[in-house]
């Protein structure tokens, strides 16, 4: 379609049909966008949802419909991986939400803190995107087996007290490194939306700080804080690169199990297992999102 046809043509057709034609042409202009998403986002997920229900016979290599893979991933080691992933992402998301909120409030409330504020905000922008591989190696250099801090504590005779970077707890500590900045980035706009006049009005009416947050600040901030926490959860749940570089597959996490299933050339049907595991992730994220929209609607109605 020629972009020049977007409906501003000077033809003498009656106004009504010209308007309809223009609308149709404008709608045609969105075809590349919707087409692209259909092919590269919806098609792969759709294929996942269908092929997770296929099975390959180990002897004849015949394919058939089956729920074997789906049943397999809800039990045993795979069930542990889902629970591990859910536990890790829920814990780190909640911790990061609290810490990020505290940091954002501390920075915004600081008087004469414009430099501090710009520093923290740009640093958050960088660190929120500083995930994956470089992050894993930075932590290995710090508290890994031969890390700088590990050696320093060893010299002091303190030791890490049983803490290991290559464990679920270690992984959580690393995840906070990109989750806290992400929380700061997403929550600062909402905090800036809190008018100082509200605080002044509440102070003038004799309300305590607790009363202000209980009745004014809290209810206004609740939806954006819940939304941001959900985003952190999804982000931690999906993280693969950091976990792979740090713990290999010694910690039960779904993304690691998926990669293992895909790279296994020995086991026939492990490809389908990978698809079933991935479908499980999509379903879990979907449930979280449905819950999120429900909470958002509830809090919004309560605010009105």
């Amino acid at each position, binding site marked *: 379609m020629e*972009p020049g046809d*977007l*409906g501003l043509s000077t033809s003498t057709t009656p106004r009504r049909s010209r308007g309809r034609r223009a609308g149709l042409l*404008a*709608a045609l*202009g*969105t075809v*590349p*966008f919707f087409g*692209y*998403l259909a092919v*590269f*986002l919806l*098609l*792969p*997920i*759709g*294929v*996942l949802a269908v*092929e997770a229900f296929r099975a390959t016979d180990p002897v004849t290599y015949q394919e058939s419909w089956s729920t074997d893979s789906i049943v397999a991933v809800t039990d045993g080691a795979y069930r542990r991986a889902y629970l591990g992933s859910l536990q890790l992402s829920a814990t780190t998301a909640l911790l990061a939400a609290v*810490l990020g909120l*505290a*940091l954002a409030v*501390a*920075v915004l*409330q*600081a008087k004469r803190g414009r430099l501090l504020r710009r520093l923290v905000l*740009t640093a958050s*922008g960088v660190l929120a*995107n*500083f995930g*994956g*591989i*470089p992050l894993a*190696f*930075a*932590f*290995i*250099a*710090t508290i890994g087996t031969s*890390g*700088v*801090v590990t050696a320093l504590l060893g010299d002091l005779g303190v030791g890490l007290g049983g803490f290991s970077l290559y464990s679920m707890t270690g992984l959580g500590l690393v995840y906070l490194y990109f989750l806290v900045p992400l929380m700061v980035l997403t929550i600062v706009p909402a905090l800036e939306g809190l008018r100082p006049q509200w605080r002044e009005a509440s102070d003038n009416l004799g309300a305590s*700080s607790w009363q202000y947050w209980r009745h004014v600040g809290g209810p206004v901030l609740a939806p954006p804080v819940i939304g941001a926490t*959900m985003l952190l959860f*999804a982000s931690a749940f*999906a993280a*693969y*690169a950091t976990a*792979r*570089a740090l713990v290999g597959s010694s910690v039960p996490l779904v*993304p690691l199990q998926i*990669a293992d299933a*895909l790279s296994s050339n020995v086991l026939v049907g492990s490809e389908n297992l*990978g*698809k079933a595991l*991935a479908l499980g*992730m*999509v379903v879990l*994220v979907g449930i979280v999102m449905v819950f999120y929209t429900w909470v958002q609607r509830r809090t919004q109605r309560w605010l009105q």
Partner: protein
Amino acid sequence: MRRRGNGAWRVVVLAVLGLYFLIPIAASVWYSSRSNGELTAEFYTGIPSAPGFAEAFGRSLTLAVLTVVISLLLMLPTMVLIDLRLPRLRSTVEILTLLPLVLPPIALVVGVRSVLAWAPDYFYGTPLADAFFALQEPSLPWILVLVYVVLALPFVYRALDAGIRSVDLKTLTEAARSLGASWPRVLVGVVLPVLRTSVLNAAFLTLALVLGEYTIAVILGFQTFPTWIVEIAGSQPQLSVSVSVLSLVVTWGLLLLISALDRRRAGKDS
């Protein structure tokens, strides 16, 4: 009195989180600048000549530039069109573009792998299969570009949306149209300059995203910059840390550049 009491927790929060964020960076610099107890820059100067670096980094950079170009070609006209003509589609487009933010990339790539497997399974010998194989050329894997465009969508959308909301595109484009400009000319001569900062912002974020992306590349089996770092980490741990430090510095530089551009523009407008 109450305000002063509140100050203490603020200092504690800033100090604890400040240490938490600074120590790994400081430790990485320390770790990667010492050899047998002596200060050295060999792990930094050795990066360009490290085996495989030039090839992997060059490939990632090419993929990043292609992703930026395709993302902008896809999103800019669509979003301008939505803003000017189809405001009712705005929320649909918004939800669809934000979807990749919550969808795990590893789930997406498993789906992409299944689709790519259709070529040998069902389409063998047809032109379609040849096209599928061409997309997976190891020297320049176009399939990565196509998937990265999806991953970059949320960032591109939010950057462009911020720009579009801050200007009155309708008036500007109508003025240009009534002065006789064609639609392509309006896009290049009016829309693009007005949205310059947003477009740069979207481009930089996409660049950083692609240069750091690991999951998709490793599952589809292609060699890029991040998969190269993981590969060398086993034999040269200090080199992998120095590359990590450098990539942090480069991202920081890019983002500072954006905020500098932003401020200059804001200063000019006000």
